[in-house]
């Protein structure tokens, strides 16, 4: 019998099956994840050379005990109220107008017995060794949230944009360089209005 033209075709019917098998494997093993979390800087281990004297009124002391109870500024506080309290403290601007620390953009009560200005205000966080990590993160989240709320307010006033959006855009590697340069200054400016001063004492074991 004479051969007619083309050689016989390879049967590719099972190729799809094999490909499906691989596909399903990769589908199952894929986890498209980008990690996210709270960024913090730890204090360097060497103590600063000069001892800075900080006025008691400029410190907002937050302590968490082993049962997850919260002591903010020597008052037992519900964690849900912490953010408001922290904002009130940071935004207080107690220094009288005319003094070097006077805060022109603060909208707080200007209570002389609370913080002088956002630049001076320090939040000190202390926790027990038995404190649950979840509670600690919640407290951290609220404190960072307090800073972010205030920064958003100022960024809205100055640039009509949220600070968190500006920062996210600045940190995004896909943002073009010229845009980033511009954002950098704005982000820096807002950050300087409310510098994040969150100190963490070493944990107590009692």
């Amino acid at each position, binding site marked *: 019998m004479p051969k007619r033209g083309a050689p016989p075709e390879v049967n590719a019917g099972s190729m*799809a099956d094999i490909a499906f098998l691989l596909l399903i494997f990769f589908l199952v093993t894929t986890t498209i994840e980008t*990690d*996210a*979390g709270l960024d913090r800087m730890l204090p360097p281990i060497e103590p600063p050379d000069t001892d800075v004297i900080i006025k008691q009124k400029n410190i907002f002391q937050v302590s968490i005990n082993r049962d997850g109870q919260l002591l903010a500024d020597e008052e037992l506080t519900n964690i849900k109220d912490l953010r408001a309290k922290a904002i009130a403290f940071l935004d207080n601007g107690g220094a009288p107008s005319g003094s070097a620390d006077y805060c022109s953009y603060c909208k707080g009560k200007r209570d002389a017995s609370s913080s002088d200005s956002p630049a001076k205000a320090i939040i000190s966080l202390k926790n027990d060794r*038995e404190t649950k990590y*979840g509670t600690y993160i919640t407290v951290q989240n609220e404190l960072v949230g307090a800073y*972010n709320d205030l920064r958003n307010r100022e960024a809205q006033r100055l640039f009509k944009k949220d600070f968190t959006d500006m920062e996210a855009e600045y940190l995004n590697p896909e943002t073009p360089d010229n845009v980033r340069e511009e954002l950098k200054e704005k982000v820096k400016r807002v950050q300087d209005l409310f510098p994040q001063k969150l100190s963490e004492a070493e944990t107590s074991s009692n």
Partner: protein
Amino acid sequence: MSKFNKKKDAALPAVNTASLPDIVFMLLFFFMTVTVMKDSTLKVENVLPNATEIKKLEKKDRVIYIYVGKPTREYEKVFGTESKIQLNDKFASASDVGDYILMERAKKPQELQNVLTTALKVDKNANMGIISDIKQELRKVNALKVNYTTYEGDAFRNLQ
């Protein structure tokens, strides 16, 4: 007879599936490229807490991971139920963290060595004591940039 033959020809032709493998391969390649294989198997329970004020960890090559949590079921008998630190694939104590960071840092290219972040993936039921020990070790080796890795969600759910 010829009439019958004609009828047979007119039967529904089979759907051409020749391009099916191409489509499937396309999907396959997509998933192959986006897949990230886990580089260490978790030996500890790792339910992260929730937070809202989070920032993304953009560059994976600049991150060193530390896992903390209770040993999982199969390791419970050997290692107990206290929270443990996992570095790479091994359980470790807090005093090993410093060496681990230095070792990981040495593996990274020179230009990245100063911009590394330490991601702490800690189970929400772990105690702060172990975290404080880790933080102390990190300060000793000057790895000051940390990221408490969390899920995105209402932070008050952590309290329950």
